[in-house]
């Protein structure tokens, strides 16, 4: 009986606090936009996907995003297939980032509020993880939270050999742009 009483008292004290958070602090999307800009001598091309999936849990300080690499399209089917082979997509289908805010963002109180954020964590592609710090912008929207960020990815760091012949070769540095509207999780 003593145990039961103790638990009831603790629950009465703690319970209301747990459930009294006024705003949602976790946001989720599975339709974020991500594009890469790839350069070859005298030419560049873009690949894009609208299948970026991710969660920002401010309360727990967790950021987790991934995209199925096979959803990237460059506009030429043959080039897409070459890209999937280069990225070893069938064995390692995802590019992913799991990390946390370097410092938690302040509360976004109005619809126009935006705040620059910095996150750090592991970026993984081709089953090779590298620690990465990425700068971004969080914007409070009526529908949720909008995330904008851009960063560079070095293919060589992830054991991906840029395709090409002799000197005509895809640049190892890929510019990544990301835009996602994350909706609050009920």
């Amino acid at each position, binding site marked *: 009986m003593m145990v039961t009483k103790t638990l009831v008292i603790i*629950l009465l004290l703690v319970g209301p606090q747990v459930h009294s958070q006024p705003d949602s602090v976790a946001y989720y999307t599975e339709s974020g936009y991500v594009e890469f800009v790839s350069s070859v001598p005298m030419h560049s091309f873009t690949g894009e996907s609208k299948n970026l999936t991710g969660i920002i849990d401010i309360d727990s300080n*967790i950021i*987790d995003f991934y995209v199925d690499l096979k959803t990237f399209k460059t*506009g030429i*089917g*043959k080039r897409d*297939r070459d890209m999937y*082979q280069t990225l070893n997509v069938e064995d390692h*289908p995802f590019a992913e980032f799991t990390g946390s805010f370097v410092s938690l963002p302040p509360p976004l109180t109005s619809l126009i509020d935006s705040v620059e954020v910095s996150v750090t964590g592991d970026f993984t592609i081709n089953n090779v993880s590298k620690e990465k710090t990425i700068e971004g912008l969080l914007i409070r929207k009526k529908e949720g939270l909008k995330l904008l960020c851009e960063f560079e990815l070095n293919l060589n760091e992830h054991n991906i050999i840029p395709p090409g012949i002799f000197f005509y070769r895809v640049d190892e540095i890929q510019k990544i742009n990301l835009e996602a509207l994350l909706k609050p999780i009920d």
Partner: protein
Amino acid sequence: MNHIIYMNSNDLKRLSVLQRHLIILFIIILVPSTLVAQLKRERANKDPKIERTFFAPTNIGISTTENVDRHNLKSSIKHTFGLVSSGIDQFFGLDNGSNTKLSIDYGINDRISVGIGRMSFNKVVDLRSQYTILDQTISGSTPVSISIKGSIGIKTLSGLGYSFSDRLSYFGSLMVSRKINRLSLQFAPMISYFNQPFLGNKQVLKGLGIVGSYEINNRLALSGEYLSILGDRNPDTKNAMSIGLNIDTGGHIFQLFLSSTQWHSESFIMANNKDTFWKGDFRFGFNIHRFFGL
């Protein structure tokens, strides 16, 4: 918390059902949400298709189940020369008149393409379309790829007194392919109908195209094909055979081959090939394919 954690099994047994439920509820409420780690990774397409059964929509002379992708344009240049057995005097056939075919194909969507081409022999212009019925999947849920192709050929030779109808020929083919690791095989029953065949030739020709390809690596593949006439054939014609090397340079697909036939479209290969590969009657040829996004 410490009180709960350090309870031993005997302590737990002494708790009532209510007490156990309260403990579970307590743990659920207080477990930090940080324990909810990564999202579960899920493929966008849970049953993806096999990529690149063949390097190009045409192997050497026979069409494959590969189709032109949506809103992509494929341009092709095909060349065949004279017989290699003509020797050094004819530079192993390269001095002999070549048969050249230029063509473009456009992917309306990922399943339907349309195209037009022109071959210098008989000055044949052909209009064609290919429809992908099934794509082989990696999981094996769809074990083969199936496509159908239809085309209309128009001989545009002048001065022969042909009516427009006489110049027409029709072609249809069902292509069934399967890729097993690096090896791809295709069987393609086909039929041709010539409105006005040359004297002594058949109006209807039936055939079976067999295509094989072995992918050496991402850049290279060996391929071969055999087109056998089924039933009646035109006088003196032979089954056609070709072997080739496919080279993928990224932007282009090059196909370098030795072939018994100098013709390019299946219906004209069936109607006109008079050389036998195994007797040394083959010629050098090459195809170049280039893909563009529109």
